[in-house]
Structure formats: structure tokens, C-alpha cells
């Protein structure tokens, strides 16, 4: 009965929606419930979910998806500058433009597979980054990043008679300002929609075909099946997700910088996906959570904060613990992250999701098995890959 329940998309969506919308509460105890981090969770969640549709299902590892994120951000900020501070046109244009770019880049890159595909996408992203940083500065404002100014025309806002003040206007959704918790809930809605789309794709015949490409493309081709349109559509969908994520970044914080497009940014989403568990529905989101949490919370722990954390210990032990932990937090947070990658991959090849399914196999009886089925959607993953 449980199994049936979790098999239904409806039930999953209800649980997922509840979990996402209550995030400000259950993340509070670990200090992660302030708006900016919540927004980042949701935005990178959208990014990773989209990336997972390409990478998780087809196995095509793109090292250039950050380019679409950046393109989405630039488009959105230009929409704020030229048209309106309302976020709706910004998001629509961003998704369209990112879609067009991903169609072009995908069309070219998908002529190759394996690492050749990865390098092609990497090359396109690096070219975008280098040009955005330097030659394209009139469009991108280079290193400084594209920002709003008081002199922006904002044509639509002018037409509907929104008054011009001497302070910068803020992004809004028909009057609701997109900062703070409103911004988070706005992004969360998109996260939920994105998750739903991804769930539908995972469980559709289309998703099945994508997985088939991953397990043996040659065989697919021999049966007379043309894989290109499927791959290209998956590429464009994930590119549009990235564009959406980029526009949401601009919505919550109207600035677009070139470093969003650098290969390290593309690498980050790859790491998030693999860390959480590629090809699973929830895995990429876990990866997002962990990496963003490290980047924002661990990096801020200094010795004073550590002393506070270990306050409950006797003084001598407290000092020892602070001395032991301090290389791993603050400016050492990269070290912790690197070590975590290694540990996860060595012991849990399928990412953290595999850890969960292992755990539930140990403890779980029937009920948990059902949950496992939901979260590690493609249990064929480990066999599916080479």
C-alpha cells in the first residue's frame, strides 16, 4: 500500500512541496535558514535538477552548463534594465535565450560523445567566460558585473507609470519585492515545478529512451533509432533549466558576473550531482545542499565561533577540539570539501543517495523500501554505466 502511495507522483509532490516550503523551519537549527542561503538552495536546486536530466539520464557529461546559467543572468538583468523590474519578463526571456544558446551549442557538441563531448561543452563555456570578462564588456560590464543603474530606461515601467526615485528600484513580482523570504518562496515555487517536470520526464517513455541511450547507444542506433533528437532535446531542456536558475539568481539579486560562467562553476554542478547521486531525483538536491552549506556556513566558522560551538566541553578539551577542527573550517573549508568528495566516492560510489539506500536496506523493512524506490529512481544506475 505504501509502495503504491509513493509510486504516485501526487504523493511525492505533496511531500516534496511540504519539505521545500517548510525549509526555513527545519533548516533553522543548523543555521541555514536565512533568506540568501535558502534562495541559493532553491536556485542551484533548479540548476542541478536540470543538469541531472542530461547527465543523470543520458550520461552525457557537460562541462559547460554554467554558460547557460550566466546567459540567463545577463538576459534577466538586461530585462530589468531595459523593460521592467517585474521578474516575469526577465524569467521568460532568460529561459528563451538560454534555450536558443543551448540549442546551438548542443547541436554542435552532440556530434561527439564521451569525453569529446565534455571538452566541446567546456570549450564553449570557457570561450563565453573569457569573452564576457573582457571583449564583451559593453554587454556584460566585465569584471564588475552587470548592475542596475539609476539611468536605466525601464520602458514598460515607465509606460505603466511607476514613479522614478533616486534610489534603485528592486525586483518585484507584481509589487511583491523579491528579496528575503518572498524571494525564497518565489524560487521555491520554481524548484517545485522543476522537480515535477523532472519527475515526469524520469517516469515517461521519453525518459526511458534517454536511459537507453546511456546504457547502450550503439545498440539503439543499430535498431534504427535516431538518438540525436532525444539527446538534443534533453540538452536544451537542461540548458533552459540552467537559464531559469540564472534568471532566478538575478531576480533575488540583480547582478550578473562573468565568473558564473567559468569552468569551475560548471564543475560545481557536476560535483553536486555526483556527490548527491547522479540519475536519482533527490540526489542532486542533496549535493546542492551540502556544497552550498559548506561554502556559506563552514567558510564562516572562525576560532571564536568554534569556541562557542565547543562551549559545553571542559576548557582543556574545548581548546583541543578547536585546534583539531580549525584547519577544516574557515579558510580551510575547501579541504573539508575535497576530503568529503573522496570519502563519498570511495565508500559510496552512487553518491549520498546510495548511502541512504544502503542504510534503508540495513534497517528498513517494507515501508522504507518504498521510499528508496522513490529516491534512487534509477536503481539501474550502477549497472547502467560503464
Amino acid at each position: 500500500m505504501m509502495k503504491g502511495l509513493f509510486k504516485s507522483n501526487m504523493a511525492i509532490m505533496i511531500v516534496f512541496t511540504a519539505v521545500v516550503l517548510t525549509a526555513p523551519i527545519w533548516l533553522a537549527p543548523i543555521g541555514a535558514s536565512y533568506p540568501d542561503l535558502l534562495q541559493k538552495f532553491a536556485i542551484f536546486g533548479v540548476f542541478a535538477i536540470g543538469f541531472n536530466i542530461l547527465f543523470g539520464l543520458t550520461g552525457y557529461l557537460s562541462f559547460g552548463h554554467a554558460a547557460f546559467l550566466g546567459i540567463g543572468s545577463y538576459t534577466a538583468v538586461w530585462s530589468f534594465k531595459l523593460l521592467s523590474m517585474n521578474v516575469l519578463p526577465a524569467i521568460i526571456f532568460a529561459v528563451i535565450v538560454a534555450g536558443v544558446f543551448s540549442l546551438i551549442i548542443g547541436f554542435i557538441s552532440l556530434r561527439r560523445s564521451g569525453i569529446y563531448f565534455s571538452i566541446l561543452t567546456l570549450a564553449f563555456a570557457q570561450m563565453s567566460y573569457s569573452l564576457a570578462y573582457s571583449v564583451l564588456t559593453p554587454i556584460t560590464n566585465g569584471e564588475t558585473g552587470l548592475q542596475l543603474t539609476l539611468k536605466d530606461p525601464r520602458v514598460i515601467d515607465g509606460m505603466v507609470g511607476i514613479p522614478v526615485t533616486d534610489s534603485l528600484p528592486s525586483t518585484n513580482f507584481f509589487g511583491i519585492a523579491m528579496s528575503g523570504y518572498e524571494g525564497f518562496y518565489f524560487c521555491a515555487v520554481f524548484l517545485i515545478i522543476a522537480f515535477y517536470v523532472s519527475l515526469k520526464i524520469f517516469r515517461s517513455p521519453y525518459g526511458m529512451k534517454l536511459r537507453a541511450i546511456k546504457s547502450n547507444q550503439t545498440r539503439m542506433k543499430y535498431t534504427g533509432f535516431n538518438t540525436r533528437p532525444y539527446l538534443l532535446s534533453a540538452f536544451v531542456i537542461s540548458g533552459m533549466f540552467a537559464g531559469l536558475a540564472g534568471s532566478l539568481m538575478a531576480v533575488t539579486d540583480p547582478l550578473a558576473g562573468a565568473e558564473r560562467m567559468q569552468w569551475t562553476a560548471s564543475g560545481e554542478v557536476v560535483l553536486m550531482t555526483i556527490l548527491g547521486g547522479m540519475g536519482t531525483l533527490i540526489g542532486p538536491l542533496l549535493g546542492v545542499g551540502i556544497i552550498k552549506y559548506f561554502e556559506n556556513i563552514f567558510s564562516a566558522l572562525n576560532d571564536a565561533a568554534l569556541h562557542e560551538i565547543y562551549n559545553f566541553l571542559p576548557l582543556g578539551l574545548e581548546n583541543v577540539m578547536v585546534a583539531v577542527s580549525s584547519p577544516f573550517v574557515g579558510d580551510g573549508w575547501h579541504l573539508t570539501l575535497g576530503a568529503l568528495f573522496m570519502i563519498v566516492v570511495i565508500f559510496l560510489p552512487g553518491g549520498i543517495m546510495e548511502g541512504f539506500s544502503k542504510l534503508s536496506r540495513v534497517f528498513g523493512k517494507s515501508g522504507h523500501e518504498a521510499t528508496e524506490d522513490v529516491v534512487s529512481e534509477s536503481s539501474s544506475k550502477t549497472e547502467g554505466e560503464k
Partner: protein
Amino acid sequence: MSDDNKFSTLSRRGFLKASAAGAAAGAAPMFFVKGANAYVNEPKGGSVTLGFNVPQTGAYADEGADELRAYKLAVKHLNGEGDGGMLNTMKPSSLKGNGVLGKKVAYVTGDTQTKSDAARASAKRMIEKDGALMITGGSSSGVAIAVQGLCQEAGVIFMAGLTHSNDTTGKDRRKHGFCHFFNTEMSGAALAPILEKEFGKDRTAYHLTADYTWGWSQEGSIKKYTEALGWKTKAAVRTPLGAGDFSQYITPVLNSGADVLVLNHYGKDMVNSLTQAVQFGLRDKQVNGKDFQIVVPLFSRLMAQGAGENIKGIYGSTNWNWSLSDEGSKAFVKSFGAEYGFPPSQAAHTCYVQTLLYANACELAGTFNPCGVIEALEGFNFDGMGNGPTEYRAGDHQCFKDVLVVRGNQNPTSQFDLLEVVEVTPRSKVEYSDTMLGGQLGSCNA
């Protein structure tokens, strides 16, 4: 089976109930409500929190670490611990060494990674989660401008750390942002007379410029002032950021007929391009019957360390150097050296001074309200902070003070003695009108 079922439905219902209650109770106080406070993050308890946002990872991590040291020292001094440092030399000063407005100074730190996005995320965390009233730091103009914009929107004060681009207080100036560090315009104005004196009027310059906004800003300023002297500019070549190997940009200089190479690079790029320019024998070269010269308009002692021997005899400008012998510098170097065992860098100095200036402005205004603080800082004249008489100009929030022209020390007496001050260019020589660079401050947001 049915047991499981009951368990999970129960727990889910319980969970939802708990969440609903939590949503009502938990979310509200976390909220960024201005209505409840007079201004963002109004300190209610016995302490006031400052946010130190510096690069802790990436290419500028060492500078960031030095900035953080200075901030911690400033907090100590403000709270009346240690020897007080510049608190004793600052004039006029309303600081009493008992915190700020009677509240103990606390701080939080963050890692900018020298990326605008990461820097803004980290600044937001400090404002939204930790309740920071003022954000300071940065070791890159792009980051400084990005965070400055954020602070304007959030309604807190931003005291810029090391940022050398004209844009910070030029076209991207903000009402809530203040910059103590000098900029490329001042570097150009201060360097030009010295270059004329040392190298003459008849020179042909070749620029290698980091291909991004700061590099262009500096190239523009140096060109403007050297061409006014009568120098010619042979070429200005843009180099990609972080190119590593600059040989393909340096070799064309050899046969270009230019006799001065201007390196508009900073950080690692500067270390690499200078090292390689020297390896290509540019400094031993004679062109047009004159000794070939290299100029690095923005110098930093930490980078001079990276360039080692190659820095000797090379001219540049700097905001401050630890070897200065005024009271303020001496007091600062003494307490910094005693604390950490080596002298502070210019980045550390500007950050330390910015923290004290902010605290002092709060005391002057009698409030932490950013509008009051801005008013107190605008047009504030002070002395005893290592740069002589200094003014925070109201029109663009840029500090105006003497600029140091330095040369890589030929005979260093210690491992820290890398730069030698050849000229203190008076403030009047580097001043420009506050409308020259464009930009609008906007209004106070609280």
C-alpha cells in the same frame, strides 16, 4: 504493513502540524523587518556586529589573511584591549576604547573567494543571519563594487578594503559605500612627475594591461598623465587575466621601439609578468640610447615578495607603507608587529583604518543608524592615521590624502624592507573634481 502505514501517516501529519506551528512562531523573528527596528540590524543587546568579508581562498588569500589580522586588531583596540594602536594617534577622535557607543564590538567573517557572487552571498549571510551592521573588506574592485551595491540595497554601511579601480567611488559610487584606498587616477597623477624626473619627457611607453575593468582604468589613467608629459604610447596590449605565461606578450616589446614597459597587472599576474619581463632581459636593454625601464603603477609588498629580486629599482605607487615614520603608522606597525611578528601590508592598513573610521563616525553620530553614520563620515577630516591629513569627500565618498610613490628597494635591510618611499605626493596634486568620473550616490536607504 498496517503498522508501518499508521506510523508514517501519523508522523507525516505530526510533521505538518509542527511545521505550521513553527512557521508562525519561528519565521517571524528571523524576518528582515524594518518596521520593528529603526533601521536594518539595529543592535539591541550589549554588542554590535561587524562583518569582515575577505578573500580567504583563491589568489588573494594571503592579502585577505592580512586584512583579517588587521580587523581583529582593530576590534581589540576598539574594545579597549591591547595597546590601543591608532586610537591614540587619531585626531579628532571620539573613540573611548570601550567599544562603540558603549556596545562591545563583535565580528563575523566570510570568504569572498574573490568572486562577486560568493562575496555577495557571504555579505548577505552576515547581514541576514548574523545581524552585521557594517560590511567591510575585499581585495578586488569587482568584488568591492558588487558588495557595495548589495549594502546599498540592504541598508547597511560598506567600508571598502583594498580596491583600486576608479569605478568604486566613480561611476559605481553608492551612498552607503566608502573607500579609503586610493585609485588609479591618483596613482597616475602621483607617478607622472616622478617618472618625468627619473626618465625624462622623451619616452615611448608600451602597456601590458590585464584585460578587465581595473586594468583598463589604470591603463587609462597612466596614459592620460604620461602623455600629458609628452610621452608617447607605442601600444597598449590587453592580456587575459591569469595568463600565467606572458612571454608571447613580452617578446613584441623587444623590437617595438618602446623604452618603458608599463605593467597594468596585479596579484599573480603582476608577479609573473614582471618576473618574465626581467628574464627577457628588458631591464638590461638600451633603446633609443636610454635604459629600458619597467613601471608597475600599483605596488603591494605582498606581491613584491613574490617577485623577489626582480622588483628592485622598479617604480610604482602605494597607499601606505609600514616604513613611514609618522606617529600613526608607528603606533599601528608597533601593535601589529607585536601581535603577529611581521609588519602589516597596505591592505591591512586600509582595513584597520576603515574600521576605526566607521566606529568613530558612529560615536560622532550618536547612533548606528546608517543615515547618521553617512552624515558623520561625509566630509570628515582627520589625521594621525598614517596618511597625513585626510578627508572623506562628501561628493563621492573617496578619501583624499597624500599618495606614496615607491621604488623596489635596492638594498633592503630586512626581509620586509622591500619598498622604499621616494616621494610623498601631496593631496593637492592628486585631487580631482567629484563629478569627473560620473556616477550618482543616490540616497540613504534605512
